[in-house]
């Protein structure tokens, strides 16, 4: 996206049209903010439920911040949880860092003897737990953060606890992913409204600009590129559209078969 460029005269859009679009953008922005609060509420509910289920002293969620390669604690629940919010740790350190980098949950006890548990961190939060369970939050291609549970009241963590905590971590990961898509959609609208629509007044030219902005949102998972490709097919000739449908069907069938093969009778209980 052409960052920092001021809104330009958008080709054949008249003043009223542009005002209309900006007005929509403002509402999208407001909606995003409201949704962001909803997301926070959902994450809060997840850590709250985690504390209740495990009868734990605390539970928290740390999200990965790519720019600083760190995990930032954003939400916490439980008597001992609040001190952690706002703190950051390097993404490959601490128990949370281990779960994040390997993608595997880990449960340990007596962490005051454990070098993985950052002593400074413990001092900062004013709380040294006896047992810790850290579970990665997996969203798409990359882990998005870590769910951590501290001090289960009823003894140490079991394999079953690890499985249950993983379900909560999955929920949190989905909430984060939904929020990220909404943010990308808002960025897309922003990119288009501030973008260069001088290239022409033809619908095709406008579509090209929108298409380029859409593709620019795509990360490693190429989600927006995919969305753009599908969208552009709407103007295809019927025979091309039929071909596209055939190709997508074939890929869909192939994907389903591979997924089935790879599931290795995961769900079969004999």
């Amino acid at each position, binding site marked *: 996206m052409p960052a920092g460029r001021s809104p330009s005269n958008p080709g054949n859009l008249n003043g009223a049209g542009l005002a209309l679009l900006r007005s929509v953008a403002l509402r999208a922005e407001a909606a995003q903010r409201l949704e962001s609060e909803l997301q926070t509420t959902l994450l809060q509910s997840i850590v709250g439920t985690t504390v209740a289920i495990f009868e734990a002293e605390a539970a928290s969620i740390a999200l990965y911040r790519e720019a600083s390669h760190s995990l930032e604690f954003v939400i916490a629940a439980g008597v001992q949880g609040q001190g952690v919010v706002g703190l950051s740790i390097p993404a490959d350190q601490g128990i949370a860092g281990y779960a994040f980098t390997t993608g*595997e949950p880990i449960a340990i006890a007596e962490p005051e003897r454990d070098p993985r548990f950052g002593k400074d961190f413990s001092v900062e939060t004013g709380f040294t737990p006896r047992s810790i369970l850290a579970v990665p939050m997996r969203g798409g291609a990359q882990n998005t953060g870590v769910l951590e549970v501290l001090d289960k009241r009823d003894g140490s963590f079991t*394999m079953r606890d690890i499985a*249950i905590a993983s379900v909560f971590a999955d929920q949190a990961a989905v909430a984060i992913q939904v929020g990220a898509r909404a943010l990308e959609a808002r960025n897309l609208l922003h990119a288009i409204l501030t973008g260069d629509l001088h290239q022409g007044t033809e619908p095709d030219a406008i579509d090209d600009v929108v298409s380029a902005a859409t593709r620019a949102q795509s990360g490693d998972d190429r989600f927006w590129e995919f969305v753009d490709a599908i969208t552009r097919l709407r103007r295809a000739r019927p025979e091309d559209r039929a071909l596209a449908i055939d190709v997508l069907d074939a890929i*869909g069938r192939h994907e389903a078969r591979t997924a089935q093969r790879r599931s290795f009778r995961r769900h079969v209980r004999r």
Partner: protein
Amino acid sequence: MTAERPPNSLQAGILPAWSEPFLRERLPELRRARPFETASPEWLGSTGAGVTVAIVDSGVEGDHPAVGGRLIASVRVEMDDEDEPVVIDDDSIDVVGHGTACAGVIHALAPGADLVSVRVLGKKNTAKGIAFARGLHWVVEQGIGIANLSLSSGSEELFAEFHELADQAYFENTVLVCAASNTPGRSSYPSLFSSVISVAAHDSPDPLTWYYNPRPPVEFGARGVDVPVAWRGGASIVGTGNSFATPHIAGLVARIRGTYPAATPFEVKTLLAAAAATP
């Protein structure tokens, strides 16, 4: 059609952990007809002398007392300037403690075995699947007979590569002892392949109690709950997870290979199953 997304336990419904077949109340289901019943085989008397076990993990702290001075080599996988994984010599260090934990368990069960550390975790390649695959390939290339993999890759892109590697290891007589993912319903390679020995945790405190599960993909259960293990900085902790069950089986495989050096991965697995505990 939707964009590819790995299955997770939410989408799949709440699934039992891979360790569930080894829960106390479910152990009777593991009862086997002859010839697969408890035996006290002669190989249990081996110390694993003459056998080398590779630990593909976060490194191994060579001077940790739990490793008993048996670490004979350390390498690490790094991404080069072209982002290709390369294997280079490493100091005998552990960046996390996880690899030292595995080494300590193996040494306790097979004190005569030599250990080689293949570090695939580190700052520059934090758990990149491709680095893990390269490390595993190196182990097979070196002709090392046993590899402890308390790590797995969830990368669908590397499915074929890991599948090929697991087959290659099987044909070259390298036994891969792999931790099942702690999170069921997720991809975990190569631990889900039939050519490897996959391991989940049971909660009995006996390091020499192991179970055979006739319902794959996870075929063996070993001690993995509240296990006292070595850790970075000469420390020790108490850990829970399939990661800690796996080196128990790797240690037993070292004993088998100490007795029958020519045993193939198939024969090793059969011997292990034959001598598994009868619930």
